[in-house]
């Protein structure tokens, strides 16, 4: 599964064309929330690195939006800090014997921020909206046949085939939030979302800040904080300066090269946790000579992951030759490659390739791809391979990627939880995101099978087999899993950094 | 008009050995070179010469209106016993407009287009004489009336562009006379005007001079104008005075070939209808003055090599009549 700005442009453009017809009146989200924000608690100011594009959880793909929405919306289930799925709006669930029906028992007495009761119909509406409008998360319901409300507090989901990762699919992030139909039809959701979460939207000042106030009626208990203001600061050094001067109390936009030093001086607390994201590069197997596994393996030997990681992430990442991080229960320790220019040259010789020049696509949306590419270019020049770096803005990049207009590219996947999400779409012959055009019947078979396997140990075994082949074939050349890095003022208590990058201020408080 | 020569003792303004140099990109240009003249109360001195002869620059130097740098002024300018060139900038400023008035050539550009006529006429009075309010206004009206502007009170609040050229020059005169100065310098004051207006202005100035008894320095390139108004004439060429004389003597007996050329160039009303004599050639470049007589390259009667190499000095050829030549070249066959 993917949270992310990954497909920002795609979704945004689809959204436009639909939004065009809807027209758009400006939305007043001004101060008078219905819940009656008694600003008893303190205000936390949090600096985000970017401004949300919009606040409709089903339509946005921007990480910044989800940082805000994480605190506004709920999903049926949600991952805990170990990324295990826990009850949220659903108190409990069970699956039928044949694994084809999931029944969710909903929490009683939950209200939306506008005071309306939360019921099973809201769940059905939300899911159907995603499916029917073919929003960008519709693929998560690919195996879902039907969603229906049995009664006010019971929802039943029928699936076409056993879907062991269904909980991760519907609860992995707030893109699967339960929204209010009125809020959608009124058109307010883009700027004035109404959810069931611990905070509710108070004010949105375009270009400047979004302020949330505590939802005193939150089903999980009223938050300690009175309000949270998200400001947008794109420069990490500026964000840090703001944190140091006390203007903000939390940010995830720290200059990476300074994190190590910051941890030690005590004026700022930093949290560094391995994330579930991974970064990789891939060669276009539809184009010779990259159709030859030897060439791809040569590339895998020709890059020094340690150096790339150090250069691009300042050590705030862990080198990995597979996708799933060490911290995950699904981690599989498989690392056949080492930095070996000699071996790389040999492999290229074997493949009969000389003077290889690679048209390598990176995007300024993710500057680490540019840094890493420059390091790789330097390393690969040792092997006699010339890396021509092509930097594009993300929309063009995506377009070229979809058209297969590249020799190789580098990017990352963010926020996956279930192994199926780590491997299927990327490496299955029919995978939606198999842009590198990898096709191996054995991998297809293993992934198909693993996707329906309900026994965790069996699944793990199947994935391990698939991963070995994928890595050996160098379908992706995996580089590293980055850390989640956040910093906050020491007064901020009760806040934890999570590997899925979800920032939750429900339990947080400011001591003074 | 009197042909008497005023003695220095009587003169109100006396310029001695005035030299003005300009620093330019290509070197130092001497634009006014050792010029001396003087003028007494009630007297009119005309300084005549082609454009570029240094006559206007010398007047500006007297007024203290030359920007320094690039200009450098040397010599003496005596105004009733004190040398203005030695005076402090404040003292100089206090003489300007108060004791020395000046009327410029172009009435179209010499008035500030943004201010009312009343303001421009009265600001000197206000500053020097400390008049205010209605007193000031009355003075402005009086001045405008004095220079012959009809319905002066009504025109006080108008702007220069609402005035004709002749009227504007009258305003300029009103400005120059506002504090009843001892000396009025009129720099080509009628050149930009049509003939009828010219005559009116000349007549006006003559009348005002008589009333106020001031000295007038009349700077012009037009010898025709000079004849009617000047007591004495000083002819300038290439930064030097080449001839000076009482007006009648000059007309009757011009001694310098340049003066003769100028007089020859004058259209004679009702004359013989002969072709105008002109002086061929151009004045010398102030950066590269000829070593000898400055007029030598254009002179019709260069006599010998001395003219070319040695600068001539002034010498007296008659009472109050001095000329800068080596040889007395009294005109044969004067008119």
């Amino acid at each position: 599964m993917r949270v992310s700005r990954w497909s920002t442009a795609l979704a945004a453009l689809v959204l436009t064309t639909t939004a065009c017809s809807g027209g758009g009146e400006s939305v007043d989200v001004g101060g008078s929330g219905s819940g009656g924000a008694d600003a008893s608690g303190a205000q936390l100011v949090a600096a985000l690195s970017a401004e949300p594009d919009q606040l409709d959880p089903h339509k946005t793909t921007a990480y910044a939006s989800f940082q805000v929405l994480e605190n506004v919306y709920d999903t049926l289930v949600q991952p805990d800090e170990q990324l295990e799925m826990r009850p949220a709006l659903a108190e409990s669930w069970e699956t039928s014997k044949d694994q084809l029906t999931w029944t969710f028992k909903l929490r009683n007495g939950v209200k939306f921020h506008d005071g309306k009761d939360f019921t099973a119909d809201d769940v059905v509406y939300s899911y159907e909206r995603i499916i029917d409008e073919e929003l960008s998360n519709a693929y998560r319901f690919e195996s879902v046949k039907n969603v229906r409300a049995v009664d006010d507090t019971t929802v039943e989901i029928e699936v076409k085939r056993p879907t062991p990762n269904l909980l991760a699919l519907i609860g992995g992030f707030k893109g699967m939030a339960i929204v209010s139909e009125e809020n959608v039809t009124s058109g307010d959701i883009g700027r004035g979302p109404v959810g069931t979460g611990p905070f509710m939207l108070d004010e949105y000042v375009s270009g400047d800040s979004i302020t949330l106030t505590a939802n005193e009626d939150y089903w999980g208990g009223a938050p300690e904080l009175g309000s949270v203001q998200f400001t947008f600061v794109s420069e990490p050094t500026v964000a840090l300066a703001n944190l140091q001067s006390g203007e903000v109390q939390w940010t995830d936009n720290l200059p990476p090269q300074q994190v190590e030093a910051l941890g030690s001086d005590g004026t700022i607390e930093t949290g560094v946790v391995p994330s579930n994201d991974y970064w990789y590069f891939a060669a276009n197997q539809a184009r010779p000579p990259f159709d030859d596994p030897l060439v791809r393996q040569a590339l895998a030997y020709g890059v020094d992951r340690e150096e790339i990681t150090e250069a691009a992430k300042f050590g705030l990442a862990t080198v990995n030759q597979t996708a799933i991080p060490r911290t995950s229960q699904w981690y599989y320790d498989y690392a056949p490659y080492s930095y070996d220019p000699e071996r790389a040259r040999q492999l290229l010789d074997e493949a009969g390739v000389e003077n290889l020049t690679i048209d390598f696509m990176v995007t300024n949306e993710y500057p680490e791809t540019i840094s890493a590419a420059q390091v790789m270019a330097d390393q690969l020049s040792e092997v006699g391979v010339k890396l021509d770096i092509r930097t594009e803005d993300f929309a063009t990049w995506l377009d070229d990627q979809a058209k297969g207009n590249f020799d190789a590219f580098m990017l990352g996947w963010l926020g996956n939880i279930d192994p199926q999400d780590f491997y299927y779409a990327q490496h299955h012959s029919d995978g939606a995101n198999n842009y590198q055009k990898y096709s191996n019947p054995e991998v297809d078979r293993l992934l198909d099978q693993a996707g329906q396997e309900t026994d965790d140990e069996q699944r793990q075994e199947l994935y391990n087999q698939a991963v070995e082949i994928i890595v050996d074939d160098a379908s992706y050349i995996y580089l590293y899993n980055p850390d989640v890095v956040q910093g906050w003022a020491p007064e901020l208590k009760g806040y934890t950094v999570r590997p899925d990058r979800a920032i939750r201020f429900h339990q947080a408080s400011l001591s003074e | 008009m009197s042909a008497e020569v005023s003695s220095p003792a009587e003169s109100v303004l006396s310029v001695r050995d005035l030299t003005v140099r300009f620093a330019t990109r290509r070197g130092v240009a001497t634009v006014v070179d050792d010029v001396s003249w003087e003028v007494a109360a009630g007297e009119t001195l005309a300084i005549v010469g082609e454009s570029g002869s240094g006559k206007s620059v010398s007047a500006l130097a007297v007024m203290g209106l030359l920007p320094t740098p690039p200009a450098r002024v040397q010599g003496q300018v005596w105004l009733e016993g004190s040398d203005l060139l030695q005076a402090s900038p404040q003292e100089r400023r206090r003489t300007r407009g108060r004791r020395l008035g000046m009327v410029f050539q172009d009435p179209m550009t010499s008035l500030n287009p943004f201010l009312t006529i009343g303001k421009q006429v009265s600001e000197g009075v206000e500053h020097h004489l400390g008049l205010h309010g209605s007193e000031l206004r009355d003075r402005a009206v009086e001045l405008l009336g004095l220079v012959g502007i009809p319905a002066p009170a009504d025109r006080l609040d108008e702007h220069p562009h609402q005035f004709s050229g002749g009227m504007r020059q009258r305003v300029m005169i009103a400005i120059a006379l506002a504090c009843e100065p001892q000396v009025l310098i009129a720099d080509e004051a009628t050149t930009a005007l049509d003939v009828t207006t010219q005559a009116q202005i000349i007549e006006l100035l003559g009348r005002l001079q008589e009333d106020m008894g001031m000295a007038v320095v009349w700077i012009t390139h037009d010898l025709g104008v000079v004849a009617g108004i000047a007591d004495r004439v000083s002819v300038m060429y290439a930064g030097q005075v080449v001839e000076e004389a009482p007006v009648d003597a000059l007309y009757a007996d011009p001694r310098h070939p340049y003066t003769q050329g100028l007089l020859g160039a004058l259209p004679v009303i009702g004359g013989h209808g002969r072709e105008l004599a002109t002086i061929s050639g151009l004045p010398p470049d102030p950066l590269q003055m000829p070593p000898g007589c400055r007029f030598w390259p254009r002179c019709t009667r260069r006599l010998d090599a001395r003219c070319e190499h040695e600068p001539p000095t002034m010498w007296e050829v008659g009472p109050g009549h001095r000329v800068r030549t080596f040889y007395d070249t009294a005109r044969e066959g004067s008119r």
Partner: protein
Amino acid sequence: MSDQASSQAPEAPAAEQRFQTLRAVLANRLAVVGLLVLAALVVAALFGPQLAPYGINAIEVEDRFQSPSLDHLFGTDELGRDVFSRVLVAARVSLQVGAIAVGISLVAGVTLGLVAGFYGGRIDDVVMRVMDMLFAFPAILLAIAILAVLGPGLTNAMIAIGIVYTPIFARICRASVLSVREEVFVRAARSIGASDFRLLRLHILPNVLAPIIVQTSLSLAFAILSEAALSFLGLGVQPPQPSWGRMLFDGRGFIEQAWWMGVFPGLAIFVTVLAFNIVGDAMRDALDPKQRSVIESRGQS
């Protein structure tokens, strides 16, 4: 002055005038320094890669963030590359962008200005109104918009900057053409049946050159500045190609630990632009007769 100009053949004073211009420029000591800086830049642009002590893309991650020293005059950047080498080699990009972009606006602007000024009438109206429209955008904004359309990159940045500065040349050229169009020698040439092209080339163009040369020099400064700004915004030169603006863009996140990453490329831009400005100013003083006349007319009565 104008009398002399019109009585002589327009080609004649050119050599003498050029010599005088040069002398006047040289007389200005500041301008000499400016010229020396520009000469150094040209050398850097031509031989930068040979002169650079390190490869511009030689990455040594262990050596990152080295402060300036004898080994690394300007220190090293976040990938351990030698900043001095990169600054040196980037001179080429800056000069290249400056030259080509201004070349584009020069050719386009002068052509449009000549045509508009020479033919007048409706052509003039249409051309100059379009120029007005381009002029109504803040330059950098227009360049950004053009780059948004063309996509970021060196070539597109040059085109964008070229378009942005076209109206200035068109305006200046047109104004000069208007002032010489009715001069005696032009009318004379026209009366003996010279073709429009010949008139433009032989009689009008040489006489409008001075202000255009001045503008060219000044525009070079601003084109270099624009390229740096665009690269700084991530829209111009793309890595790994070094460019001063891009180096600032990459360095601004590290400014606190590695001030040299932000200071030296910025200084390079500043010094270059300053040099072009000073030389341009000196040329204006030397070439623009209007300026000269202000000083010299005071020498005449």
